[in-house]
């Protein structure tokens, strides 16, 4: 009897622990996944000439970085597209871990960064040059801050939901985005244009895809259990 009780307690304990640790594994709930692609002719991804900043120019001498406002991948995939639950959000967990933004090689890494309101954001200068990060916020307070060589990281946070373009006051080609979302159900597409939203409780959701140049597209998706629903977004691209 006691051994059985022990095994029951142990099993519940292990299972519960597994559930908590295993959030990265398949959480209970539905999954909405798919790909973001484009039709038409996208603008050329141009190499960025960083000649005016010799340190960064040297870093990219062998392989220049390309503009990131429209980044395409194989099979007409679109990178850096945010796909998220814009309405009907349930079961979002507030995120508390610190997100890191790097200014490295005179680029913002990642180009599109997602945080939740009041989530800690640490901004590092990894380059041997000064940067001055300037988020052009309209709902949140706008600010800019210099980080000379060797300066400590900036500890920031955003209070209100907003899509904030970010530029560097010193290097005109450096652009990125800080996307402040209340939902934790989001994904940013990679080179393959794929996204996966997991752990969705049953309900009706509006899923929105946002691309910085092409704007937004939304679709309504209803999930009932732990099925996987497939959704795709296709943006119309023009060369200019």
């Amino acid at each position, binding site marked *: 009897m006691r051994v059985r009780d022990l095994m029951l307690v142990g099993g519940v304990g292990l299972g519960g622990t597994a559930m908590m640790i295993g959030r990265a594994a398949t959480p209970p709930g539905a999954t909405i996944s798919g790909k973001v692609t484009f039709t038409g002719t996208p603008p050329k991804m141009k190499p960025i000439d960083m000649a005016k900043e010799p340190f960064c120019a040297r870093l990219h001498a062998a392989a220049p970085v390309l503009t990131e406002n429209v980044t395409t991948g194989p099979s007409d995939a679109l990178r850096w597209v945010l796909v998220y639950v814009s309405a009907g959000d349930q079961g979002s967990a507030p995120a508390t871990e610190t997100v890191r933004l790097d200014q490295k090689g005179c680029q913002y890494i990642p180009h599109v960064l997602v945080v939740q309101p009041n989530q800690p954001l640490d901004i590092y200068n990894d380059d041997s040059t000064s940067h001055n990060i300037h988020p*052009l916020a309209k709902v949140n307070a706008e600010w*800019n801050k*210099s*980080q000379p060589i060797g300066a400590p990281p900036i500890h920031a946070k955003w209070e209100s939901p907003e899509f904030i373009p970010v530029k560097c006051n010193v290097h005109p080609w450096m652009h990125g985005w800080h996307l402040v979302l209340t939902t934790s159900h989001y994904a940013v597409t990679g080179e393959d244009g794929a996204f996966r939203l997991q752990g969705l409780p049953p309900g009706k959701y509006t899923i929105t895809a946002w691309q910085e140049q092409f704007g937004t597209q939304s679709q309504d998706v209803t999930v009932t259990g732990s099925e996987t629903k497939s959704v795709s977004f296709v943006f119309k691209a023009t060369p200019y």
Partner: protein
Amino acid sequence: MTHATVAGAHRHAPPQGFLRKHVFSLDHKVIGKQYLDLALVAVCTGMILSWLMRFHLAWPETPIPGLAKLSPNGAAGGVITPEYYLSLMTMHGTIMVFFVLTTAPFAGFGNYFLPIQVGAEDMAFPRINMMSFWVTLVAFLVLISAFVVGDGPPLSGWTAYAPLSAVGKDAGPGQGVGQTLWAVSITLFCVAQLLGALNFVTTTLDLRTKGMSLARMPYSTWAWFITSVIGLIAFAVLMPACILLILDRVAGTSFFIPAGLVISDRLQPHAGGSPLLWQHLFWFFGHPEVYIAILPGFGIISHILPVFARKPLLGPRVMIACLVAIAFLSYTVWGHHMFLSGMNPFSATLFSVPTLVITIPATIVTLLWIGTIYGARLRFTTPALFCLGFVSVFVSGGISGFFLAQPSIDTYLHGTYFVVGHFHFVMGVAAMFGIFAATYFWAPKMFGRMMNETLGKWHFWLTFIGVYCVFMPMHYLGLAGNVRRYSAFTDDYLKPLIPLHRFITVAALFTGAAQLIFLFNLIRSRFRGPQAPDNPWEATSLEWSTTSPPPFDNFGGRPPVVERGPNEYGIGSGARGVDYGMQAAAARVSAR
């Protein structure tokens, strides 16, 4: 024509109570000392800012201890950010030009000594005089408040060129409320100086005592008088210019901002303005301003040098004529700050002509000083040394102006350290030497106590050698093309010049430290120095005919009657104590 003060129009009863005697005083002597104390606080502030700047230029990545606490935004981790460097530079220039170089030699010493030197009981308008000090103090406090409000102090330089200074906070850190506070502060400063200049002019023309004709006025009085006239016109232009700047910033006007500007990714909602208009207005004030800064020094040196040479100033009428010529010409040259500004290039040639012509009276006055010490019997006291040092540094600073006055050469030297070396020699050194000479000379009269001569001489030598080590190398940097107003030297061609910058920084820190000797001497002597006689230097002008310090009405109710000009030195048999003739008849002369 002189007006006696006995008529009582300006007589006021002796002040009673601490506040009336020392704080809200109508007495020009107290007001003069208040201005000097303000300038002292300002120069210490401005000097500390320059140490921070120089340290950063020499060692840009080295943290400065304590700075992170003082300014967590400007110097996180103790390393000055590029914008904070420019803010320090802006505040350094603004504080030094306005609150030191315009305040001390003109408002400070001028207020104290002009009425006495013309034999009056006080300035013509004592209440306006008091108001002008308090408005200056408020202007200073408004300026300093930029350090602690909003985004910090402005970074557009003391010259505040539009549109950087006019569009508001889009233009960068410090360009928000900090820049507005700057403009308000300068507007207030202009008001104060206009009030003060009004007093100086009226007192000089109307309150001279019996026998004090214009020709018999001391050269320092002449210089203060001429400076006031310059100031009346110059500040009257800067004040509306700053008001227009404030309007552009807060009221949506576009005096200085054209259409189509994109700053911080935003199209600016302005149209129709001209950035060059700001430059013209500013420099129309700005060039006469630098003569406002130096002309009192010319007067002070011309006043003090004969005392210690025991010989009259050479060519006093020529000297006065040159001061008047310089004052007049100072209004015709402002475009030499704008040769490359985008104004019509033909204007550059036009402006360069009077700029070069000013060299002539400037050369004459320098030669008159040198000629004064020819055949002299020089007494090398501290004030005398600073007079001689003044001549040397003024030569150095003036000569570099010769290059910048020519547009063809300015094509290369504009915006480089050559300019920085030039204006620091003439303003930061020569004008300062004038202030030092005046302080050592007049401290016994103002405080009734002698300053320590040994400390004074140490101060002189360390400063004289130090300033040459700081500012002469800047001309070499300029010839190499070293651009100014850079917070760091990262360009390929500038990196080899950094060792010379380090030399300058070390020299600047040493020279700055040497000023502590002056501060210590000044403060200690003011309260504990040995008693000063009425006329310790055996000088002739009216301030030496009264007690040290003078009574509240300057002459104890008995206005002096003047018999001679101020230049009666080296007369008589040459036996000690009787080689000069005091301006006042039957003066109380105390033996040395």
